């Protein structure tokens, strides 16, 4: 089979996974939220647990009218979901699903991920500006401040892991953990910083100021509807998956099994969805912080902590 056919097949697999995973996570979020809130969540379509709700949602999203505000900045508005969605899909290239299941084992895997993640910000800006809506604009401004502030501790937190494992390749990091045990043991502080910064990067509660439905209605995607809104949703939930997978890769041994069994894709997915559950659980348990508190936490708490972690790790490695 020629290489480009393989490439297209791989792309299709990733897109299918993004679609299914996005729908599944939306369903799972509604279900977990329901159970936490003494409700049962979706239960009508596909009884008893409403599993086919996700297909109903998808069909609804595809068939809804795509409304464009008259005063929107047409092309910017139009491109924003694409710009927001593409980097998320690109991140799948370097996620190590299993011993041999990886798109491309790049030697700059982590930097690639960071670069790709930082690009999503542009999509948020474009959506916020292009909608020509004040709520959207405020949401985009908040998104900018938040994502820039939290990207720094997020990347700095991974540096400890990089220093220990000595590689930027995601597969390499997992292989190191297979040999030496999970990084969480030595890099707990980094994990805490990474996790908090990750929540902020994902715009999840308690850092969901960008969406902040009680203040800004829906932030930067207030004006979107139909499949365009769906793309934001898919990108967001896929992002949750990507970030959780990254956390698993960095700190929880990736596809390595904890009991000495053979590592596999399944174990990787189980670990990732455990982190996803944690994120969902946190969302339905805590209130939202305010923008100044968010900045304070990011710059005055997480940044020094991640720097301290780097220095500390360096000292340990030196000794």
């Amino acid at each position, binding site marked *: 089979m020629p290489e480009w056919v393989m490439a297209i097949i791989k792309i299709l697999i990733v897109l299918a996974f993004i679609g299914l995973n996005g729908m599944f996570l939306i369903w799972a979020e509604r279900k977990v939220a329901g159970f*936490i*809130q003494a409700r049962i969540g979706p239960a009508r379509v596909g009884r008893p647990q409403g599993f086919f709700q996700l297909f109903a949602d998808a069909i609804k999203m595809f068939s809804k009218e795509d409304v464009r505000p008259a005063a929107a900045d047409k092309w910017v508005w139009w491109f924003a979901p694409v710009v927001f969605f593409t980097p998320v899909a690109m991140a799948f290239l370097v996620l190590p699903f299993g011993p041999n299941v990886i798109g491309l084992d790049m030697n700059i895997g982590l930097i690639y991920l960071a670069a790709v993640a930082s690009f999503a910000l542009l999509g948020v800006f474009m959506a916020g500006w292009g909608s020509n809506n004040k709520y959207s604009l405020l949401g985009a401004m908040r998104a900018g401040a938040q994502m820039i502030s939290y990207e720094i501790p997020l990347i700095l937190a991974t540096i400890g892991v990089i220093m220990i494992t000595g590689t930027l390749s995601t597969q390499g990091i997992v292989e190191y953990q297979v040999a030496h045990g999970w990084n969480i043991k030595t890099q707990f502080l980094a994990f805490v910083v990474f996790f908090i910064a990750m929540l902020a990067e994902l715009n999840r509660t308690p850092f*969901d100021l960008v969406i902040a439905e*009680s*203040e800004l209605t829906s932030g930067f995607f207030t004006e979107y509807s139909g499949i365009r809104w769906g793309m934001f949703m898919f990108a967001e939930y896929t992002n949750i998956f990507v970030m959780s997978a990254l956390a698993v890769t960095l700190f929880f041994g990736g596809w390595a099994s904890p009991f000495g069994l053979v590592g596999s894709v399944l174990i990787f997915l189980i670990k990732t969805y455990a982190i996803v559950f944690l994120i969902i659980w946190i969302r339905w348990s*805590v209130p939202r912080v*305010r*923008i100044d508190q968010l900045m304070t936490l990011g710059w005055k708490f997480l940044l020094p902590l991640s720097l301290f972690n780097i220095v500390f790790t360096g000292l340990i490695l030196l000794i």
Partner: protein
Amino acid sequence: MSEIEARRLKAEEVGHEKLILNLGPQHPSTHGVLRVITTLEGERITEAEPDIGFLHRNFEKIVEGWTWSQVIPLTDRNDYLANINNEHAYVLAVEKLAGIEVPERAEYIRVIMSELNRIASHLLTFGTFAMDMGAFTPFLYGFRERELLYDIFEKVTGARMMHNYVRLSGVRNDLPDGWDKEVLEFLDRLENDVIPDYYDLLIKNPIFEARSLGVGVLTKEDAIAYGAAGPILRGSGIDWDLRRDMPYSIYDRFDFEVITREEGDHYARFMVRMDEMIESAKIIRQAFEQMPEGPVMGKVPRVLKPEGDIYSAVEGPRGEIGVYLVGDGNFKPYRVKWRAPSFSNLSILPLMAKGQFVADIVLTIGTLDPIFGEVDR
């Protein structure tokens, strides 16, 4: 020229760049249909102006065409979270005006229902305040308890919200058998399981404390000057509760505390409500112990044509619900003036919102807890 354009021009004259943001009337967190025109500088509010009246339905004029007893179902719809308290306020005023006697047992039932309604209303306020802060789960917990309480209401009044239960000279029907046990069970659960859960889940949460402590401070002087009422007044450290200071009905027979907090911030107002629920539970327990047997309806004169005017007030969940009645010896009221606590509470919003973040004005509206059925009437 619309008012927004006028404001924009004004902002341009000054040479500052200001963003005029319209919060509401269709906004997920403005309780009901409140529109606040805010002027922003970055995320800070420099000016906020509430625009009300979207729910206006002419209550005070409508009832001038209705007989004295027909008004009662409509009072339910003023503050639709404190129905019994509203009915009680109106009925008390008419009874005073016409000199109607009320049997003992009916008084006790009225007090029990009023206090239960206060608990229901505060449960909802707990939930909506949490939701304004972005925590969705406490909102549904609050609603769940309130729904259970409404089940209890339904057993007595036959309706979940618009009870139409209090009547001139008494209440519509007696309590069903075994109802008191259900209420006491609910109160026990509320005090022992539910409220501790609320504390763990929301009130002790560091984010909650960071968002509410020291934010939206209302000083004592301002609270008095703006005619604040209820938990907002008591949250600013003013020890004033009509149930104790101007006892109506039979409130002088109960032993309860008036909750006050000195700080005057969001947290204080919120905690006043939380503690008031427990005080209400105390009153209900005492009422069940003291309640005599007997009829629940007294004699209403066949022809009800009171004359004169009267002001009478009760302490609702949101503060003083005052009713001013004028009767001209007809079977209809000549004039009804409704003093709605939410209305005067909402008037403080521009003062409190100045200098706040956008995120905090939502919380401020949440702690002021206006109900628009009552603000707009």
